[in-house]
């Protein structure tokens, strides 16, 4: 494998350009401002809407970071990184979701 073939290949951490970081920064800033905006204008919407919109904005911003900063994408070079991340996300879903479910139900039954 020659060097030139892997120009800007980042030891398994993905292909990088300045443009990636600038676009990622602008999108992340946009989502940040949107999130803060939801809170600033929370009185004009039902609370559940704000909660959902904030969560979605956070999730989308995390994807922005993962794609533009961490270069996680659908390429075969990134495949194992993505698989390991997806598995961890599943664990997190079980731990956090399960905790919320159990504690909420417990609280309900003890009232």
């Amino acid at each position, binding site marked *: *494998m*020659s*060097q030139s073939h*892997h*120009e*800007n290949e*980042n*030891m*398994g*951490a993905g292909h*990088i*350009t*300045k443009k*990636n*970081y*600038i676009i*990622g*920064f602008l999108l*992340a*800033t946009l989502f*940040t401002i949107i*999130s*803060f905006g*939801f*809170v*600033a204008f*929370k009185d004009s919407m039902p*609370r559940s809407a*704000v*909660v959902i919109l*904030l*969560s979605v*904005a*956070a999730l989308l*911003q*995390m994807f922005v*970071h*993962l794609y533009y*900063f*961490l270069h996680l994408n659908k390429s075969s070079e990134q495949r*194992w*990184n993505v698989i*390991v*991340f997806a*598995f*961890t996300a599943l*664990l*997190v879903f079980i*731990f*956090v979701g399960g*905790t*919320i479910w159990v*504690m909420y139900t417990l609280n309900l039954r003890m009232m």
Partner: protein
Amino acid sequence: MNTTEIKNREEAEVIAAEHAHHAELNTFGFWIYLMSDLVIFSVLFATFVVLGKNYAGGPGPKELFHLPYLFIETMFLLLSSVTFGFSMVAMHEHNKKAVITGLIITGLLGLGFIGMELYEFYELIAAGHGPDKSGFLSAFFTLVATHGAHVSFGLLWLIVMIIQLVKQGLSDGVRSRLVRLSLFWHFLDIVWVGVFTFIYLMGMV
């Protein structure tokens, strides 16, 4: 090329490929560590969800958190991710000076973030709202301080890398360590997105 030259060339290519493979494995191994770190943060988040409304008759997020302050803090960290990214681009262009400059700016921005966080903690504790005062505050301080501790270790690592860069330039070891530090740094910004959204902003709703 004669037979010996061909053989030497092939060996050099094999060695280069092995080094590249080894570096990739190091990167992947570090990524797996970051995933375990993600699990740790997620259970701290879960703890906050469970305890986050227990104010023990004391103040809650609406009384204690300041949005403009939080926004500036967030931008410090976000910008530092970008400047680190620029360092990595410079690394691939073999521009040692630009790498060092980028890392120094990243470090200063990270220091700004930590400084603001420490000041926030100081103010809270001085006003009698320390981590021992309520379930909400315990969970808040634990999660946010764990993140802050990670960033602080990252800053230390940054300093070490700058020193190594000055002393040995963009050697193979320095490059692969910088790649891992970059993963670490970006990961912490992702965790912060979760922190400022679900701990701070959600509490203000």
